[in-house]
């Protein structure tokens, strides 16, 4: 990204933070909190997610066959199926249906044909409204949020709550200007009543109802609409012609496959156990058509129908017409794409958006492409609108993995973002500053990668060089002119404190105090003192920051393990690949994963435990390595590696003596912020438990993220967003409490925000505290 786009991006994000951020945060964080609560209260949640996932996998696998099945089923019911290749194809078909219905319809000749719509992101994707209007057709959105957008001429900011960014006051202003009521609208109730009555009349007179479909059951031709307002029901039942537009990926084989989705979609979207209306229609339905132009005509066929209204071919059906438009628009290609295929499992519940700290701050307009927004939008936009459409906002995914536990179909959303970022990196034009980074970046990436990305992606090499030349490199880095160059070339915001590189690395320090042999002696002494028979050996994985910058936490880890009777080795190990992954440099990460595994294989064979301090590196080994290493290697490393406090927890559970550590007074309060990826690995609890066992009373943060997310907060264009997210965390932390955090960047961010020291929990626990 060149300099001017960086500053434009910064301006745009700042604008959104001020204008749309507050309304988005209020709604998205509330939905996220309800979702968590409902997930927590659902006993069979994991089974449900697993089942939903496997049904989607099988359905996408069988998609061509399901398309034939649904065609037969809908035609047998008396409807029509149209497979649209792309947006233009779909729009032309729907326009044609509407025009035909308006001329032939029994509704009498209206001035111009009219369509009422219920909310559908798929019709947003193809810009159906524009196409219909261009043909002289009146289109009215009936979902209240969508209608507000239509009146305001804006685009959705959230896939479930499209007008989430607009506050009640703004809606009231909009309505008052537009409709000039006798008494100005003010409350949500007044606005809702007015919208209902106004839209109700439009629905009653419409020629055609257009809906989307959340799911389509192939073998019965059943479309499922999930809503809370009831407008989709009205759009489907009132006009005698119903057109449903759905992506082909919405097909499910049978009715029983629908069950887990009906059960989970509202839980993930809004935290409701089930939505108000789950409408399952196999149209054309038996419901009588409603002709409000003939108010004195009974809507039903009279007594005969009433006595037995349940017949499959009741009198209502004869006038009804139904069209199912199944949209391809890139989906069949996504199905062939091993990395993007997963996107097709998405049920568009918006849980990934709600759980995302960056999304909560800026909303879909900062975090979206042409149509879709939030974490999964990267996959959708790349698939249906093309990679460039995903380019602009793809950086906003920091890989925190909060969305991974939220997604009802278990999509690895961060991975999709990594993949698309990787593809974008490869397609960029070579830029001017490559030479600056080239010397420092021995990566496996082809040219053209953004220099800032290469810098952060190769942070290990950079840190090594900086350490070798410290303190000169630190003085240099702090100098004003150097900061200006760093900002211009690499995009590192000059308001950020840069890490101070230490001349003596952790590996050097460890070797200097006698290395593995001395460590064994220390551990043996501790073991005989404590009487616990701990028969383990550990290899400490030294991440870049621990090795060159924050070496105190590394020393604390070594001392803690030795005090609990575990001999430690601190070898010079290759990087995990986390930094490269965060910049979308998959080839580099792949090579690093292989090297790290090779370097650790002998230790694993010898039964040594790999102990990791930085949660994001452990997360790479436990999550992404599954895609980068052979399955046996992956499982071997995953099963043999532990987060430091998790490991200490295991030692204490197996008889190690906590009094060998620095213990609190029994209930000594301490604020603890875990790490996003650590939480996804379910490793927040062991740290909290260790702190409790050692006499502390940890107060756990609930904020989604610290906002720093590795290199994200260093980048000029994201500095303000990073601080906005971080402030929500800082506000939770009581004044005066000591604070510990598991991630390096979380700690740095908190130190900036709270203006006091923030250590790793292991530094609090280490015998003698954090000595240097």
């Amino acid at each position, binding site marked *: 990204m060149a300099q001017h786009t960086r500053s434009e991006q910064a301006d745009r994000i700042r604008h959104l933070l001020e204008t749309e951020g507050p309304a988005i945060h209020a709604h998205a964080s509330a939905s996220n909190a309800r979702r968590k609560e409902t997930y927590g209260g659902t006993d069979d949640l994991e089974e449900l997610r697993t089942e939903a996932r496997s049904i989607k996998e099988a359905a996408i696998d069988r998609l061509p066959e399901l398309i034939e099945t649904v065609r037969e089923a809908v035609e047998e019911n008396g409807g029509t199926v149209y497979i649209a290749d792309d947006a233009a194809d779909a729009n032309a078909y729907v326009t044609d249906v509407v025009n035909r219905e308006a001329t032939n319809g029994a509704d009498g000749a209206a001035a111009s044909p009219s369509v009422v719509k219920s909310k559908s992101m798929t019709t947003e994707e193809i810009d159906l409204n524009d196409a219909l209007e261009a043909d002289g057709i009146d289109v009215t959105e009936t979902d209240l949020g969508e209608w507000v957008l239509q009146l305001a001429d804006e685009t959705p900011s959230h896939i479930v709550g499209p007008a989430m960014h607009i506050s009640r006051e703004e809606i009231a202003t909009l309505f008052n200007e537009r409709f000039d009521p006798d008494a100005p609208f003010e409350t949500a109730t007044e606005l809702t009543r007015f919208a209902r009555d106004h839209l109700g009349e439009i*629905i009653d007179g419409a020629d055609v109802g257009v809906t989307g479909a959340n799911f389509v059951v192939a073998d019965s031709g059943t479309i499922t609409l999930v809503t809370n307002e009831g407008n989709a029901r009205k759009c489907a039942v009132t006009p005698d012609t119903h057109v449903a537009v759905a992506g082909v990926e919405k097909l499910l084989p049978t009715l029983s496959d629908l069950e887990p989705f009906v059960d989970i979609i509202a839980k993930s979207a809004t935290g409701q156990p089930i939505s108000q209306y789950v409408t399952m229609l196999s149209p054309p339905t038996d419901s009588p058509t409603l002709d409000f132009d003939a108010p004195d005509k009974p*809507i039903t066929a009279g007594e005969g129908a009433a006595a037995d209204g349940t017949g499959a071919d009741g009198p209502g059906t004869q006038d009804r017409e139904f069209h199912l438009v199944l949209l391809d628009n890139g989906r069949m290609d996504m199905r062939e794409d091993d990395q993007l295929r997963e996107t097709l499992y998405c049920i568009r519940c918006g849980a990934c958006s709600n759980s995302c700290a960056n999304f909560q701050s800026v909303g879909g307009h900062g975090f979206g492409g042409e149509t879709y927004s939030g974490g999964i939008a990267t996959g959708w936009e790349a698939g249906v609108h093309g990679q460039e459409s995903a380019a602009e906002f793809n950086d906003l995914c920091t890989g925190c993995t909060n969305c991974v536990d939220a997604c009802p179909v278990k999509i690895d959303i961060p991975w999709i973002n990594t993949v698309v970022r990787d593809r974008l990196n490869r397609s960029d034009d070579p830029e001017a500053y490559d030479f600056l980074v080239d010397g420092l970046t021995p990566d496996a990436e082809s040219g053209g990668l953004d220099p800032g990305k290469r810098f952060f992606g190769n942070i290990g090499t950079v840190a090594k060089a900086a350490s070798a030349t410290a303190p000169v490199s630190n003085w240099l880095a702090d100098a004003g002119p150097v900061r200006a160059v760093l900002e211009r070339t690499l995009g590192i915001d000059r308001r950020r404190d840069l890490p101070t590189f230490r001349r003596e690395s952790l590996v050097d320090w460890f070797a200097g105090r006698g290395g593995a042999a001395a460590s064994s002696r220390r551990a043996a002494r501790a073991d005989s003192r404590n009487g616990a028979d701990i028969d383990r050996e550990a290899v400490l994985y030294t991440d870049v920051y621990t090795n060159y910058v924050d070496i105190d936490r590394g020393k604390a880890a070594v001392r803690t393990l030795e005090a609990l009777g575990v001999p430690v080795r601190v070898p010079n190990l290759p990087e995990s690949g986390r930094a490269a992954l965060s910049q979308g440099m998959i080839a580099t990460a792949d090579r690093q994963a292989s090297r790290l595994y090779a370097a650790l294989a002998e230790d694993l064979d010898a039964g040594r435990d790999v102990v990791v301090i930085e949660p994001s590196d452990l997360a790479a080994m436990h999550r992404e390595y599954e895609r980068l290493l052979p399955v046996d290697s992956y499982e071997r490393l995953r099963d043999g590696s532990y987060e430091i406090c998790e490991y200490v927890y295991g030692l204490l559970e197996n008889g190690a003596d906590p009094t060998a550590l620095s213990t609190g007074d029994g209930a000594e309060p301490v604020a603890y912020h875990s790490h996003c990826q650590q939480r996804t690995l379910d490793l927040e609890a062991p740290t909290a438990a260790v702190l409790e066992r050692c006499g502390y009373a940890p107060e756990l943060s609930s904020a989604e993220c610290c906002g720093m997310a590795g290199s994200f907060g260093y980048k000029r264009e994201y500095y303000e967003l990073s601080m906005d997210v971080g402030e929500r965390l800082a506000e939770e932390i009581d004044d005066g409490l000591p604070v510990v955090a598991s991630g390096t960047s979380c700690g740095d961010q908190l130190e900036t925000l709270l203006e006091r020291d923030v250590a790793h929990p292991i530094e609090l626990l280490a015998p003698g505290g954090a000595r240097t």
Partner: protein
Amino acid sequence: MTVDTVGRFERALEGLEVGLERVTAADASERIGTIAAEPAIGVPLPFDDVDLPASVTTDPMAAELTAARTGITPVGFAIAEYGTVAVESTANGAEPISLYPERHVAVVAESDIVPDISAGFDRLADGFDAGRDSVVFATGRSATADMGDLVHGVHGPGDVHVIVLEDR
């Protein structure tokens, strides 16, 4: 059908602010009449010896559908776990009659209340096989938060009552 299931249904409805009354078939008509605000429209009830009150219009005209304050319909079954009633799209107008008026009175036989969504899907599948293949699971009152705060009664009813026929 155990009493427990009805209890569970009742608790779920309470959380949704939907009223539930258990009545005998003999008393049903009178109770429905008390709950129904006029003008009321409805679908004839398929349960033995249970009639709609005389004041309720069946086979309404379009104008009556618009004017009605209450719509009374039978429902195919109910799901206790979530407080859901299953409205079937029938030719006698159950779908619009349960949707348009501001109050919906749903009448269900106690023997048609199933414990959870799985059992609900079994019932749904039986109905599909018998040709009743358009069904709305309606749970609580129509709602939106799109205007800033949560408001009930948007396009659908803002007021819902369930009558359970304890001897049917």
